[in-house]
Every structure is written in C-alpha cells, then in structure tokens.
C-alpha cells in the first residue's frame, strides 16, 4: 500500500471511503450530490467513476426520506454510508435518526441492530451565514443509542470510518468544514483507531483544555501562546462526544486542578455544559478554580467576517479563559 504519507483531512476522508467500498460489497455511499458533483465538499470526487452508480448513489433532496431508507437498508443487511451534506440539513432527518435509528434496537427488545454510518459537515467559519454554520454534534450526543465521532485530526479522519462501519450501532461522524483543508503526515504505524477514548494531544501541568473538532487546532495554538507566559496547558482531544471519555478528562484535571472546555456549540445545553456538570458531580474536590467554557456566542452565526469571527470561539478567547483561572507566574 503505497498510500501517500502526507494528505489533507479531505483526502483522508475520501481514502477511508474508498477503502470501505473495496473492503465490503454491502457498503454503498448515498447522499445529495455525492456522485456526479463529487460531493459538496469534494470528499467523494472520483468515486462515481471508480465504483459506479450502484454504490455511489445521488439522492433527491429528501433528507428524512433517504435517511429512513438508509436505516431500512441497514436493518435488512446492507452497510449504507450516508452523507447528509451538512448537519444543518440533518434537522429534517432528526425524526428518522432519533425515533428509528437510535431507538429500534432497544425498543425492539434487542431484535435489530442499525449498522449505519452518517457523515455530516459541521461548524462555521466559512462565512456561510446562520443556516449553514450550525454546530449540532452536541445535540446528537444527547441521544442514547447513537455514537457521535468528531475527528479533529487527519489521522482520525483517515481511520475512524472503518471503526464506524465495523460498529453494529448508528455512528454519526461530524467533519468540521474548516478542517477539510488541514494537512498532516500520517503515521504509517497507525492502521486503526477506536471510537471510545479521548486523546492527550499536548501535555501540560497548569490547566486542562478539553475540546474536539475545529476546537483542537485553536487550543493547540492557545497552548503555544500560554507557554510564552510560562503556563503549561494540557490539551485533550475528545474524539467522541458519545460515549464521553470522562476518566481521561478527570485524570487530567486531577493533575492540573483547572479546566477550560472549548466547544463550538452554543453554551446553553451544549456538550461543554454536560462535561462541566459531570466534573462538578464527580471531581468537585479536584478543582482549584471554577470550570470555564469557551463556546460560540449565543447568536445565529452572522455572514460578515468580523462578526462571524467574534461569534465563534477564538484563540484569544481561550487564552483569556485560562488566564482567568491560572495565577500569573511572576
């Protein structure tokens, strides 16, 4: 396998899909403009020519319909790989995802599994304005029966799909629009990843930054800024919003005693709210400072660049949050 070692997040997603299609004849890709157009974010470019219309299926604009259809196909023996162009359009399919995909295994008394993978672009930062800039992965992490993956690195983009397709449960993979162009070296030693554990991306002793997706590069940048002040920030990449790997988060907080959660969702009822609540419930005595959260401002994401930037979590915002709970090193 002379796979190029250096690739973009987008190419990693495409290579993962190509591998999946070669690996299992039951797997097929369906979604809006995944075929001739090559995918709204060009992730499936070239796959129609390579695999044909039977396995790369352009769908009509009918999210609830084709999502329900994908669930039915999964019930009856296929392995559909559904692309809902962006999470903004998934709201139309929320009924099928929640009431059927997430619920049938339990409600049927364990008679059916729903081996379905749904990929969606998510997040803002491309000036697409409010209706195309939502960050809804946290909502889906509220639903028992689903698994929610938020690959923040090229490596996870490359390998999470295989794990998701092997998982008997419905797995939603959220790919942040800004990350598609990120580029990185792939470690040829890594051929698979799990869908369970968070990962320490940067060690530090003074504060724990908990984040995922497009929050990861922002937190790593913030950590570099803080290092200049002598503050060593530890960065935890959640990788999964459900299941939530609390032991890794708590383990880090027990060392640093301070935590900032960075989440592109709106604060109210977000995944960051859930993490903060669990820390207060299970690790209260480990904390030497209040929990801080850096989230999107509670506004519909505006089009104008400076407004959008002000609305989304920023590196400066993260640095400021850390400084508000870490005593200055003088």
């Amino acid at each position, binding site marked *: 396998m002379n796979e190029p070692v250096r690739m973009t997040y987008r190419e990693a997603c495409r290579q993962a899909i190509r591998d999946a299609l070669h690996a299992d004849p039951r797997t097929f890709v369906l979604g809006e403009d995944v075929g001739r157009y090559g995918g709204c974010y060009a992730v499936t470019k070239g796959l129609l020519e390579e695999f044909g219309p039977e396995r790369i299926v352009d769908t009509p604009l009918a999210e609830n319909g084709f999502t329900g259809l994908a669930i039915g196909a999964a019930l009856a023996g296929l392995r559909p790989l559904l692309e809902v162009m962006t999470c903004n359009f998934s709201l139309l399919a929320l009924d099928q995802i929640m009431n059927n995909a997430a619920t049938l295994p339990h409600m049927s008394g364990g008679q059916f599994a729903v081996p379905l993978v749904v990929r969606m672009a998510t997040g803002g930062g491309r000036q697409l304005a409010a209706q195309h800039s939502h960050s809804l992965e946290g909502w889906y992490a509220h639903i028992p029966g689903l698994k929610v993956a938020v690959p923040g690195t090229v490596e996870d983009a490359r390998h999470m799909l295989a794990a998701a397709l092997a998982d008997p449960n419905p797995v939603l993979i959220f790919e942040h629009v800004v990350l598609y162009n990120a580029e990185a070296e792939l470690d040829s030693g890594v051929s698979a990843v799990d869908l369970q554990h968070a990962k320490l991306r940067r060690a530090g002793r003074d504060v724990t930054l908990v984040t995922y997706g497009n929050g990861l590069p922002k937190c790593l940048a913030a950590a570099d800024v803080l290092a200049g002040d002598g503050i060593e920030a530890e960065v935890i990449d959640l990788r999964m919003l459900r299941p939530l790997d*609390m032991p890794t988060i*708590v383990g880090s907080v*027990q060392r640093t005693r301070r935590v900032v959660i960075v989440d592109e969702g709106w604060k109210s009822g977000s995944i960051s709210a859930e993490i903060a609540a*669990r820390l207060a*419930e*299970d*690790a*209260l*005595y*480990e904390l030497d400072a209040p929990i801080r959260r850096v989230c999107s401002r509670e506004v519909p994401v505006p089009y104008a660049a400076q407004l959008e930037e002000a609305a989304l979590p920023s590196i400066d915002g993260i640095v400021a949050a850390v400084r508000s709970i870490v005593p200055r090193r003088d």
Partner: protein
Amino acid sequence: MADFTMPALGADMETGKVVEWLVRPGDRVKRGEVVAVVETHKGAIDVECFLDGVIENLAPLDVDMPVGAVLATVHGAGGVETAAPAPRASAPAAPPAAAPAPAVPPVPMVGPLVATTRARVSPAARRRAAELKVDADRLSGSGVDGAVVIADVERAMAAGAPAPRATRGGFDPVLMRQAIAAAMARSKREIPHYHLAETLPMRRALDWLRDTNEARPVTERLLPAVLLIKAVALALRDFPELNGWFVDGTYRPSPTAHVGVAISMRGGGLIAPALHDVAAKNLTLLMRELADLVKRSRAGGLRSSEIADPTVTVTNLGDQGVESVFGVIYPPQVALVGFGRIAERPWVDDGRVIALPVVTASLSADHRVSDGHRGARFLARLNETLQQPEAL
C-alpha cells in the same frame, strides 16, 4: 356474580360519571354490548360490558366516580376479573394505582466520587480557610464524603487550630525540634496515657508477603510495614474511640482512618504525614503512597501543606532493632500504635516449643476517651486481622 366497574378509558383518565344507562336493571347483557355512556374530561364515551348475565343495582347518574368503582353487578357472569378490587367508590380521588410496579431498587444515578489524591475540602471551605488563615488541609471534615466544610473551618478557628507552618518548601530543623517539643510536652501534660502490648504471630503474614512479592515486579514489592498499617486501619473500624480528635474537652471520632506514619528525618527530627482513607485502599496503592511519602520526607522534599492531619499514628521502629515501643500520642489524636522488630522467638504451640516470627504491637491510648479493656480488645482484633493477610 361479578362487578361491572368504571373502565379506564384512556391513559390519563382518573374519574368518570355515568350520564346514561342503555339497559334497565334485570336486563340480560351479552359480552361486548354497550350498556352505558360515561362522561370524561374528553367528552361522552360508549362503554361496553364484558360480562354475560343479568345486570342489577345500576350506579346513580351524574356521580363522579374513580376508575374501578362498581357501576353495576351482573350475576350469572364470568369475565375478566378486574385488576381494581371492588368496591372502590370510597377510593380517594387520587389516581387508582396501576398494578404496583415491582419495588425498584434505587439505581445509583451518580457515578462514584473519583478517589481523590488529596484532602477533600469544599471550595467554600477553602476560600473561608484562606480568609481566616486556617490550614484547611489539616482539618478533619464533617461534610459528606468526609469533606472539610465551612463549619469545620470556623470551628477550627474558634478552637485555635495551629496556623499553617511558616516555612514553605522543606523543614527548618530548629523550628521542627521546637514543634516536636511543644507537642510532646502538651501530650504528656494533658493526655492520661495508658499503655498495652501484645505479641502477634507473623508466620502467616510473612509467608503470604513472600509469595506475593515473588509474583510481583520489584517496583510493586510490599514491605511488612504496609501490612501492619492496613491492619491497624481495618481493626480501628470497630474502635471509633481510638481514631479521632479530642478538642476542647469533646472527642470527635473520625469516619475513616487517616494513619499518620512516624518517619524519622535524615537530618534528625520526626514527622508523621498521613496516608488517607487507608482502610479503603489496596496494598499496592498504599505501598506506592507510603514509599513516595517516606522517600520525600527522609530526603527533605515533603512540603508542609502535605502533612494532612492524621486521626491516629503508627510508629514502626522495627528497623532500628527495638523490640517494643511505647510512644507518646500526638495531640489532638487519642491513640498511637507502635510496632517493634519482627523476629523469631520461642513459641509454645500445643505443648511443643517452636521458632516463630513475632512482632510486639503496643497501644498508647488516651484514658479520657477509652479504657484498657477496649484497648486490649483492639489489639486482639489487630491480631485477628493480621492472621488473614490475604484479606488486607
């Protein structure tokens, strides 16, 4: 003879009233026949009767009745015996209980509190302690999970708890000596000590230890000291009068055993930092904490803030070759357990003399709080505990 009762016509229906009877007393009714019209909060509904027979004593019209109340009797009838026992007319307006749900065991919704690596002090108590310049880490907590809460801080302030040690970082030997002198003098002055000793067979414990260590890497190797400390903590669970604090004339037992381990400093001097929740920790964790504590304290690296306040102290002078030790209690504690050297001694075992490794365990205790009788029982329990090393 069977009762025709007010049917449950909907998920949220609690009461209804008959607004029209479609049969007369004495009529013959057939299964599934509509016999009445019942008014509910959603409107009038035809009601079937599932009994065959002659219907009698029809309930009065326009009287609100709970689900299950008897509306009529049908004699010469079979049919499904209703879940609601008749008559229910007198039942309170509260919704009739459906078949009682099986007793639901309280499913613990909250995960277990993470085993913390330091004293549990609530954020509020920590802030108050800072204000009052009280070392919250050294207080024993009365809050949930044994946490130090504001009340503890304020009570300690009232009781004149010692201010936090002046020096940050390592220990000033002179200050150290003065502190020990003051504590020992106060102990002798205030605490009416009584002393007891007992020789404990150690064959089972040492054999178990030898076998256990053979199976472990050197980094997890156990020492007899950690067995002794754990045994003390376990034995203390039934002797609250030996594990706690005596402050201002009142004694407060501690819910758990924070065991102070007397460690002689390399540069002279003595400190007794605590191992927390000893009873709740396994030997591997305890050994790691003990090894770390001893290494840093003897090398002078222990910080004052780390000396949390123990609720009992164990001194182990075995290494120095002393056979038994009768120590002085550290106030405000009320007991001190001492261990001498583990050594082979002659021992009469059912009429024969054999060589047996033994250790002399001693108890110094505060007679204001406990009596010799209880002290002796504690040593006996300590012995029993040490005879089952695998349970430590």
